């Protein structure tokens, strides 16, 4: 099981355990976003530095950590990511989860999620991870390069 998969599992367990807790539902949604973030970081690193041996290298760690939260939304809403249907679908889900992550972690409003809306956000995270697994070689390359490197053209 990958860290991303484990985080998603944790989000589901947290939601299940905290069905009537505003705090736990918030933690579940926030954790679901981080599951997706780590799935993306892993995809990017594996794309640029393939192979099992690379995973133990300093370079892998550096590439993995190069993914930034701040640029995700911007990159997913412009070319080239918005030119690929499957990447756009992933973008819609990731950007919304990211926005919910901020609500979950920082918004002082008492009423944020029902059991159902919390479950929907977790289902979104799960779908992102499923969609990431279905990407072809070109889509993976475009996604990794777009998320990791600024386009200075």
């Amino acid at each position, binding site marked *: 099981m990958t860290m991303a998969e484990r985080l998603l599992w944790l989000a589901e367990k947290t939601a299940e355990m905290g069905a*009537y*807790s*505003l*705090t736990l*539902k918030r933690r579940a949604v926030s954790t679901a976003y981080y599951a997706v973030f780590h799935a993306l970081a892993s995809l990017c690193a594996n794309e640029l530095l393939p192979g099992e041996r690379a995973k133990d290298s300093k370079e892998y760690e550096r590439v993995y950590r190069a993914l930034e939260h*701040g640029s995700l*939304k911007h990159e997913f*809403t412009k070319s080239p990511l918005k030119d690929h249907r499957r990447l*756009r*679908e992933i973008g*819609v*889900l990731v*950007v*919304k989860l*990211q*926005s919910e992550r*901020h*609500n979950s972690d920082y918004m*002082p*409003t*008492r*009423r*944020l*999620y*029902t*059991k*159902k*809306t919390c479950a*929907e956000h977790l*289902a*979104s995270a799960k*779908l992102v991870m499923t969609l990431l697994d279905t990407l072809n070689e070109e889509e993976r390359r475009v996604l990794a390069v777009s998320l990791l490197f600024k386009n200075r053209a």
Partner: protein
Amino acid sequence: MNLSQINEIVTPILEHRFHANGFRGSDISSEEDFDGEIVLRVTAHIEKPVEVMDRVDATLEIQDALEQKGESRTVYLEVETDNGEKPDTLSGEEI
């Protein structure tokens, strides 16, 4: 575009896509997102739940239709089915 103009584009899309789910109407508001961007929040009121992928497809159709009219704000589509549950009311927890 103002919210009323946006609603004229959004409602038929939702009506068409979620007709079988018992589409009852929609609300649109604009709000500031975590990064300071003004986004559009569309809430579709529906009787039966919608699959996540169907919500994604509807979001993309709405975004494409709005972009054709020069509206480029990010769209967040919420689907609300009234199951009587109110958010967090049973928790007894305080912020």
